[in-house]
């Protein structure tokens, strides 16, 4: 009985499994199963099947030769595939971890909060300094949308009077943010402090538009609909109006 020699040459059930079979190791072990009917053919087949017999391995017998023939083909591929999976899994873990930590990074979240507070604050300050007597209602609605808390309450309270004044004066006011900075940010309280350098242009019914600069200080409150202005005011100067250019000597009476 040369049962060993049957390896690899006998079509066993395992070898005939469809390509979905993922486990190559199982295949090789299954090869050892002997099909007695094919025994007689085996000796003849050996040389034909091991197209490239490895001479040095001869003493291990024809079965080893046959297995090697299979391995030379299958093992490097399999080894490469396993190595590829290991490397890919390593990369996936590494970058997945980096993604996770970045997404849960506190200072990163704080940075994003600071930036969204700044953007909302700039927009709110601009909105609250923009009003056209031809669209007062629209403008004041925008004021309400941009504000929260005390500021919103006072806008609501003074709305009618203010609208009447603007319509009577027939002025159109526009504003441009020159620069701004968040000076404080309290994540837990949902509050932020902002300073804004603003340029305001008032166009009267008749006459030329007048431009002035304004130094503003405000408080932002985080609401369900984003950051809103809850306080806003001009930064006072000891005397005189704000926004005078720094290096110009103050006018002197001679």
């Amino acid at each position, binding site marked *: 009985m040369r049962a060993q020699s049957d390896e690899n040459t006998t079509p066993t059930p395992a070898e005939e499994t469809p390509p979905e079979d*993922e486990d190559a190791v199982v295949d090789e072990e299954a090869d050892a199963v002997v099909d007695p009917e094919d025994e007689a053919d085996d000796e003849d087949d050996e040389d034909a099947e091991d197209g490239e017999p490895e001479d040095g391995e001869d003493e291990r017998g024809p079965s080893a030769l046959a297995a090697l023939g299979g391995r030379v083909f299958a093992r490097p591929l399999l080894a490469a595939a396993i190595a590829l999976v290991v490397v890919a899994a390593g990369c996936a873990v590494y970058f997945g971890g980096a993604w996770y930590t970045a997404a849960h990074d506190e200072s990163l979240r704080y940075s994003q909060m600071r930036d969204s507070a700044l953007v909302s604050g700039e927009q709110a300050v601009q909105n609250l300094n923009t009003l056209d007597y031809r669209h007062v209602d629209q403008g004041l609605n925008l004021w309400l949308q941009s504000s929260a808390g005390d500021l919103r309450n006072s806008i609501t309270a003074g709305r009618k009077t203010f609208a009447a004044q603007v319509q009577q004066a027939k002025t159109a006011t526009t504003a441009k943010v020159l620069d701004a900075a968040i000076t404080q940010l309290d994540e837990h309280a949902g509050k932020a402090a902002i300073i804004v350098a603003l340029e305001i242009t008032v166009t009267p019914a008749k006459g030329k538009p007048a431009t002035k600069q304004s130094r503003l200080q405000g408080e932002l409150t985080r609401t369900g609909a984003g950051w809103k202005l809850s306080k806003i005011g001009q930064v006072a100067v000891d005397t005189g109006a704000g926004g005078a250019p*720094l290096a110009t000597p103050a006018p002197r009476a001679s």
Partner: protein
Amino acid sequence: MPRRTPPATRPRLAAPVSLAVVAAALGVFAIVAGHNAAGLRGSTAARNTALTDTARTSEANGQITTAVAGLFSYDYAHPEKNRQATRTFLSGNAVAQYRKLFAPVLEQAGKQRLVLATTVTESGVSTIQGDRAHLLVFANERNTAVKTGQTVFAGAMLAVDATYRGGKWRVTGLDSFTE
């Protein structure tokens, strides 16, 4: 009898192919995750450490506050103090920008015997990226002409670019929003 050889090759390929598919899926995930992580870390918000790095923010704030106060204060009797401030705090473009801004003061200083005192009332660091920072500064000026005894107050606002060099923040850009 070659009939027995072909069936062996197909199942042997199945495992490597399946593994390659798994590897490809993992690879795709790694690329997406890496891209997202880099997107978060490399975003403008993330690179800006203003307020998130409290120590560095207050360092920049404090030093630039001192710089602005020193640069825009002038005593006709002790002009060297102002000159010392310009040497200490100014760098790059700010040198010419400051000269232009401050020229009118210097012009009047001797004649009017000016004493200009500037105090920073509010300041905010909007960005710090590495060794560069941007600040918005509000200041109060008290300008006294000793000759006439008159004092005038004014408010000012100033956008400042700052650069960190040799352990100090220096003013490298000045904008008073006057143009």
